[in-house]
């Protein structure tokens, strides 16, 4: 039963990811007083791309073909670490948050390789920017996870979620607030959302993610797009699991699971609205200010780690 629920929550993370993207786009359209596409649009986009022909630039090497599979594989693997409706995960084990951080880094590394391999100038520019952003985002990402792990004395994400579930909701400590702040900033940078990267553009000199995938088409592009949607959904789920797991099912009864699922949808919806408001209200940062943005995240996460010694004393 527990295994079945774990499998189901991984599937929800993977299959529901395009829907999350669709809802974000719809929310942004509503805030900008546009009509907006249907929330199911990302699914039809993916279906369309899967039916199309896969074109590879004549200058590209074998790396270019392998990258979509590696990226999709690592992202799927990350999705199986994150608990959704109950505090356990399909592949979760001790120390899995290190693996989570570096699996995401592996996917990004291969995507940057593909950006260089594609042969266009935009790909190289996007890849070098991606390298800058990801190397600066890695420290706050890991440190904020470490802070929460030290606070809860658990080394796996599911264990941290279970520990937080046992705490009083009013008993949030300084560590939680600081780590949440830093991790939220990292999520924005990692998933290429608004103050760092503009996810809606295909033709802008400052694009990061779109620059790297410019040469891809057909099923390869579909896998990359799907992987980035899964990554966004998994990061939101990670934020919820670490900082707001209240409502997760502690027993495997049908009622508890359905309540947990409803609460999870409500929390994701809240984060989506927050993201849409930020993206509609904030201007994109200049590329040279992105290190400052992530520097702030690093300082806050370092402070979170320091605060664990004060709180646990």
């Amino acid at each position, binding site marked *: 039963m527990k295994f079945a629920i774990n499998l189901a929550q991984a599937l929800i993370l993977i299959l529901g990811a395009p829907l999350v993207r669709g809802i974000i786009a719809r929310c942004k359209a509503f805030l900008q007083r546009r009509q907006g596409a249907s929330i199911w649009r990302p699914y039809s986009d993916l279906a369309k791309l899967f039916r199309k022909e896969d074109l590879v630039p004549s200058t590209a090497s074998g790396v270019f073909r392998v990258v979509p599979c590696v990226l999709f594989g690592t992202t799927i693997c990350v999705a199986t670490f994150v608990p959704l409706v109950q505090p356990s995960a399909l592949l979760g084990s001790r120390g899995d948050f290190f693996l989570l951080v570096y699996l995401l880094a592996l996917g990004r590394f291969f995507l940057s390789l593909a950006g260089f391999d594609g042969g266009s100038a935009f790909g190289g520019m996007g890849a070098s920017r991606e390298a800058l952003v990801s190397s600066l985002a890695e420290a706050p990402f890991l440190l904020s996870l470490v802070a929460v792990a030290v606070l809860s004395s658990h080394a796996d994400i599911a264990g941290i979620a279970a520990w937080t579930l046992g705490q009083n909701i*009013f008993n*949030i*400590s*300084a560590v939680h*607030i*600081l780590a949440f*702040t830093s991790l939220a900033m990292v999520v924005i940078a990692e998933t290429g959302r608004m103050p760092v990267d503009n996810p809606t553009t295909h033709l802008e000199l400052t694009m990061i993610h779109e620059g790297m995938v410019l040469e891809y088409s057909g099923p390869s592009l579909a896998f990359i797009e799907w992987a980035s949607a899964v990554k966004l959904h998994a990061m939101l789920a990670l934020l919820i699991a670490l900082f707001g797991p209240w409502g997760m099912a502690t027993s495997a009864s049908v009622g508890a699971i359905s309540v947990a699922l409803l609460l999870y949808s409500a929390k994701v919806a809240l984060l989506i609205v927050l993201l849409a408001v930020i993206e509609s209200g904030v201007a994109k940062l200049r590329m040279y200010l992105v*290190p*400052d943005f992530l*520097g*702030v995240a*690093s*300082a*806050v996460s*370092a*402070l979170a780690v*320091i605060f664990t010694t*004060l709180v646990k004393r």
Partner: protein
Amino acid sequence: MGLVEIATGKVLTSFSVFLFLTVLLLVVARRISTCIVLFSAQSAIIAAEVFATGFQERLAEAYVVGALVLVIKVAVIPRAFFGLANRLKTSHDVKASTTPTQSVFIAAAMIYLSYAAVHSYGQSVHVPEDALAAAVALILTGSFLMVSRNKALMQMLGLLVLENGIFLAALTTTFGMPLIIEIGVFFDILIGLLLMGIFTFRIRDTFDHLDVSKLRRLRG
């Protein structure tokens, strides 16, 4: 009834974290208007702590002080600042002499330093350590803002942040000063703000800018 008591307890123990957040945001903010809004939010948090202390210690005076904080520091001073910034017709930039990353690391170090400073004192006297550390951190950050920002307006704001820290320190150690002294302090701030406002106008009229790093020589 029970809920109100829990809420006041939480305000006293956890709101200092939000004060640390405002401190971190203040040192990275690049626009004067952001700093003013942050100062207003910071004062609102302190007002909440005043009300919570008043409720917990059954002090009627604290409510008056809290209301004064709400009116003067959350509403009047920020409005006056916005008006001043508009009428001075100066740029929005705070003219920081450190980059935001440097500033935030310095602020983080100061927060840690303030914890280290109050640790021994907090154990000998029975006071909430978080709130006292937040007060020390506010004092340090206010001074840091004053020395590292070149816009004359930011010196005023730094002074106000510093004053917030002193007020919070008094609140946490002795449950606030007597009412008459508090009123005197508030009056002092208002007069000080008035004088500094006039002074910034004079700087602007004489030098055509508000950059204090360029005030090197006297002019008639």
